């Protein structure tokens, strides 16, 4: 068994982990599992793709940065895409989720997110058709780094980006006032309200962080794999599994869970075959639910 699966697993794991942060935050603060989270991923990616296209139309062909496959347009477009995805999440919260939350039945919100997911995904299929597309068709030469592992410059850059983002979100949630307000909301919403925490702003920050990271994860998939309307929906089960494995509400847990699932998937692809990849998250999910339902870093619900 070649060690290449470690790189593949870390990359898949980064995408899953970034997505799972959003899932775990929505779950712990807004108290529902958001089935539309994967579709934030896909919408962010298509928005980024559209902006890349617009930039190419305005400035012509831009040389890529160093050995990477993309230049500044993708970075600029990613910023716009992140902003767009965050706005989309806030809009969806305003017209749908906030109203459903008022009915005080958590599962109704889950159902609403299921309907929204279906609508969002099909709308993407309507606008962009279901044909896969790519940010760049250039082929990168993978560099050998020893132990039989090869890695491309794009992959290195995206792993670094993931590390920076995870560290940033971790610091934001543990070291700032906003982050402490979020923790308070997840631990005891009623008490948080009483001590004067601005609930509406915590809800907004939660959506913005989750959607922004979903967009970045989607663009990573777009750069390394391909862009399809179903790309986010297919990530849903791994993301849920990672969030539960890490322990609901724990950001380091979500990332670690994502990496574990990514490595397990990459290992399974080598040992069993790529077609069974999606079953890995399910097996891990069931194992966690049976053995330790609160996950690695979870706390018991109050």
């Amino acid at each position, binding site marked *: 068994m070649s060690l290449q699966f470690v790189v593949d697993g870390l990359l898949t794991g980064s995408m899953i982990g970034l997505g799972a942060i959003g899932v775990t935050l929505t*779950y712990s603060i807004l108290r*529902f*599992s958001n*089935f539309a989270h994967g579709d934030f991923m896909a919408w962010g990616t298509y928005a980024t793709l559209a902006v890349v296209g617009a930039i190419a139309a305005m400035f012509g062909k831009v040389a890529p940065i160093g050995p990477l496959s993309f230049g500044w347009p993708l970075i600029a477009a990613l910023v716009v895409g992140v902003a767009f995805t965050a706005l989309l999440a806030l809009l969806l919260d305003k017209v*749908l989720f906030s*109203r*459903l939350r008022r*009915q*005080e*039945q*958590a*599962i*109704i919100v*889950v*159902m*609403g997110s*299921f*309907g*929204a*997911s*279906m*609508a*969002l995904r*099909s*709308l993407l*299929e*309507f606008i962009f*058709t*279901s044909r896969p597309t790519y940010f760049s068709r250039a082929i990168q030469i993978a560099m050998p780094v020893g132990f039989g592992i090869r890695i491309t410059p794009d992959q290195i850059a995206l792993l670094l980006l993931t590390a920076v983002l995870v560290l940033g979100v971790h610091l934001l949630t543990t070291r700032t006032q906003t982050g402490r307000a979020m923790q308070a909301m997840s631990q005891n919403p009623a008490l948080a309200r009483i001590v004067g925490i601005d609930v509406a702003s915590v809800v907004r920050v939660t959506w913005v962080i989750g959607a922004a990271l979903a967009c970045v994860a989607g663009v990573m998939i777009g750069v390394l794999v391909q862009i399809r309307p179903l790309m986010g*929906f297919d990530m*849903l*089960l791994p993301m*849920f*599994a990672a969030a*539960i494995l890490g322990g609901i509400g724990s950001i380091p847990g979500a990332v670690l869970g994502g990496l574990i699932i990514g490595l397990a998937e990459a290992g399974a692809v080598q040992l069993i075959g790529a*077609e*069974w990849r*999606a*079953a890995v*998250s*399910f097996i891990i*999910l*069931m194992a966690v*639910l*049976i053995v330790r*339902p609160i996950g690695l870093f979870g706390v*018991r*619900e*109050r």
Partner: protein
Amino acid sequence: MIDLVGYGAFFLTTALIFSLVTLGLNLQWGLTGLFNVGLAGFVAIGAYTSALLTTPDDPARLGGFGLPILIGWLGAMFVGGVAAALTGIATLRLRSDYLAITTFGVAVVVQLVALNAQKLTGGPFGIGFIPRPFGDLAETPLLFNLSNLAIVSAVTLAAYLALEHLTRSPWGRVLKALREDERAAISLGKSARFYRVQAFAVGGAIMALAGALQAHFIGFIAPDNYLSILTFQVWVMLIVGGSGSNAGAVAGSVLVWAIWAGSGALTSVLFAPEQQARAASLQIVAIGVMLCVILLVRPNGIFGERPRRARFGKRTKATASESGS
């Protein structure tokens, strides 16, 4: 005219098969409050089980065993019920969201097995030559469609009556009690988890039976029939009909299927063939928006007249989280 009757029979048969799935979901969600977003998986389990049991021997895969159709149906219910029971046993002691995520995973895995376990399921090309009831009438489509409609109606009616009876039986009253005040029900000595697993298993068995009925009606199954869109359609049917009412479940299914088939026919008239895949996705968008609007405006469904359950739901949630800690 004859064509129209034939199409009407075909339409109603499909709608009634959907009704059967919706009845199963109503037992799980409407009566017991268990959220199943992977019901397409249970329908698929039923369809494949029955197909395996009843198709003639095929050297390319396991079985078929050439058994009578009735055995296929019973087998489908058994396997579907066991699969649902296992799902329930693993997750029903946890928060309700975990059941939702697990059922979602079940549907993904069933889809994966259907696609990849060629020896068992025939892979992406599915299973053909599934025996059809009154298959020798296929020469005259009208007679064939009407006789199939009769069978499906009979099965659906039987399921409806059985569920109505169950709802009013002591068993159904325990489920309602658990849904509305879990702590009181438990204090009367009723095991919440045991009853919920039973309800989930019976619902899964009904869904699997519906899958088997459809497999034998069409005569051919493939993994594509059981994508998440099926789950979604059935949920819309139940919500439109008003969850909790068996009659509403049937009415909602027929109504939503009429809207679905009608708008499908409309798009095929209005759009050029190369645009039809895109138009079909717009159809799904419309239904998705419809589901969200109904949840916002009339959470009890168009036909649902029962008082709002928000208060009970809240209480159930509170007790569930307390008992979980």
